[in-house]
C-alpha cells in the first residue's frame, strides 16, 4: 500500500543501495536435509526459505490418490519467528492461498503421469521473511523436486517486481512491498517460456505491466542459471576417498 511516508528511491538507488534492476544477494544450497528425498535452502537477501520434497510415495490418506497421475501436495508455511512480530503457527488464509498458488506454479513442469497413485509432497518453511517469500519458495521447491529425482520439463524460478516511488524495481524486499505501490510476484520456467505463477497486488498501467514482466523475466533468467549451478555443484563436488 502506497503510504508515501518512506523515501524508497533516491538518486536511482534503493534504500539498501541496490539499483532498480538489481537482485538481492542470492544463495542457493541443494541437499541440505538428510531425510528428505530432495531439499534446498534459498536466500534472497534476508529472506530465507527451506523446501523439502518427499515422494513419489504412498500417502496416509489414500482417497486423495488419482488413477492417472501423482498428486502434488504442497504446504507453504511461515515459521512463527520468521516475521517481525511473532506469527501464529496455524495456517493463515494467506498461507492457504499461497500453498495453492505455489502448487499451481509447480504442476505445469512436473511430469506427474509417470507416478500414478502416488503423492509427491512439497513442504516449504519460510525461516525468515523479508519480502519475496513466495517466489523464493518456488525457486527452492523446484530445486528440491529436481534433487528428489522427479522428472520435470524444466526448472521454475521466481522473483517479484514492484513499483516503488513510481519506478519499477526488481526483487523488492519487505519495506519496498509495504510502502511501494505494487508487488507483482512472477515464476517462470525459462527453458519452456512458460509463466507458471503470476499475481499482482497493486495498480499498474498496461505499459508498466509489460515492462514489469520483462524485468521479472531478466531476473528469473539470472536465478535460473544459479539454480543450474547449484545442482551441478551438488553432483560434481564428489570427493574421491583414497
Amino acid at each position, binding site marked *: *500500500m502506497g503510504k508515501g511516508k518512506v523515501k524508497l528511491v533516491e538518486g536511482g538507488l534503493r534504500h539498501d543501495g541496490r539499483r532498480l534492476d538489481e537482485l538481492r544477494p542470492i544463495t542457493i544450497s541443494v541437499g541440505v536435509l538428510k531425510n528428505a528425498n530432495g531439499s534446498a535452502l534459498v536466500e534472497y537477501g534476508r529472506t530465507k526459505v527451506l523446501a523439502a520434497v518427499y515422494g513419489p510415495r504412498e500417502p496416509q490418506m489414500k482417497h*486423495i490418490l*488419482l488413477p492417472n*497421475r*501423482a*498428486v*502434488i*501436495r*504442497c*504446504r507453504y508455511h511461515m515459521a512463527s519467528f520468521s516475521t517481525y512480530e511473532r506469527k501464529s503457527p496455524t495456517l493463515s*488464509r*494467506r498461507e*492457504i*492461498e499461497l*500453498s*495453492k*498458488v*505455489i*502448487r*499451481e506454479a509447480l*504442476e*505445469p513442469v512436473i511430469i*506427474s503421469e509417470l507416478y500414478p497413485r502416488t503423492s509427491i509432497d512439497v513442504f516449504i518453511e519460510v525461516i525468515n521473511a523479508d519480502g519475496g517469500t513466495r517466489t523464493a519458495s518456488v525457486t527452492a521447491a523446484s530445486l528440491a523436486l529436481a534433487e528428489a529425482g522427479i522428472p520435470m520439463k524444466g526448472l521454475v524460478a521466481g522473483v517479484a517486481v514492484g513499483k516503488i516511488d513510481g519506478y519499477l524495481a526488481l526483487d523488492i524486499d519487505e519495506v519496498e512491498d509495504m510502502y511501494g505501490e*505494487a508487488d*507483482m510476484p512472477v515464476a*517462470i*520456467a525459462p527453458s*519452456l*517460456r*512458460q*509463466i*507458471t*505463477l*503470476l*499475481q*499482482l*497486488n*497493486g*495498480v*499498474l*498501467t*498496461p505499459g508498466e*505491466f*509489460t515492462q514489469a*514482466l520483462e524485468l521479472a*523475466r531478466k531476473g528469473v533468467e539470472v536465478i535460473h542459471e544459479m539454480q543450474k549451478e547449484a545442482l551441478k555443484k551438488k553432483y560434481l563436488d564428489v570427493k574421491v576417498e583414497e
Partner: protein
Amino acid sequence: MSVTPSAEFLIPKLKSDVIISMLGRGVRPNGRKVDEVRPITVIKNYIPNADSSVLVKLGNTQVLTGIKLEVGSPFPDTPSEGNLMVNAEFVPTASPVFEPGPPDENAIELSRVVDRGIREARAVDLSKLVIIPGKKVWNIWVDIYVLDHDGNLTDASSIGALAALMLTKLPEVEVRDTGEIVVDRNNRKEQPLLNRSVVTVTIGKIGNYVLVDPDLEEESLLDSKFSVAVTDDGLIAGLQKSGMGYLAEDELPLLVNMALNKGKEILSIVKALLKDS
C-alpha cells in the same frame, strides 16, 4: 495443505471434443463468441437486514453478496483507517461438489482476489471510515455467498462485491460526550461509499484457445485461468493466474488487452443496471 484436485465435474469426451473443435473456429457451443460475457442481472437490496445487498446472476451462476457495517476498532498500524473484509462461502446448495464446512482454498483464493482488486484500486477510501480517530472506525464486511455454480465464480463475486459497495451508504452516527456511539441506520449519508469502480475479468485457457467468462462445462476443460482486476480508468489493479496450466510469455499482452476491454464493458453494464430499476 494444497492437493491436486480430482476432476470434480466430468463432461463426456464427445462434448469436450466438440467444444475444442468449435473453439478452433472461434465459436462456442453455448452460442457465445470467445470474448462474450454471459448476460448479467442484478437484483438490488435482496436482503432487508443487510446494509446493502445484491443478487447477481452471471448466466446461470448466482451469487448473493451482503454488506454489513459494524462499528469497531482500527488496527494499531492503521489508526486513521477503517477496515474492509471480504469473505466468500461456497454453500453446498450451489453444487454437488461443494461440501459444508469452512471455506476451502478455492473460496479463500476467490475472496482474496476480489479483496485485492477493491483494496488496491482504492475503490473504498478507508480514511473516510473513521468515526473517532484512533478509536472507532467502520468495519465493512463484504460476504459473498455462491448460491448456484455454473462457472466463473470469481467474476460473478467481483460484480456482486462492486454492486453491493455501490449501493452502500454509511449510517449517520452521533458521538455522545460519554464516548458512546449511536448509529442511526434509518438516516444515511448522501455521499456513496464507493469512489472508484473495479471488477475482475477471468479468461480461461484451453490449449492455445482463450475464452472470456467460462461456464462450468468450459471450466472443466481449462488448463488455466487468468483473472485481471480492471478499474474504470483502464488500469490493472490485480492479477491472478490459477489452475494447473501455464501462461505463455507471448500471449500475455493479448490476454491483458482482452481483459481491459471486457472490464470496461462489464463496469458500464453494472453501472447501468444499478441506475435504472
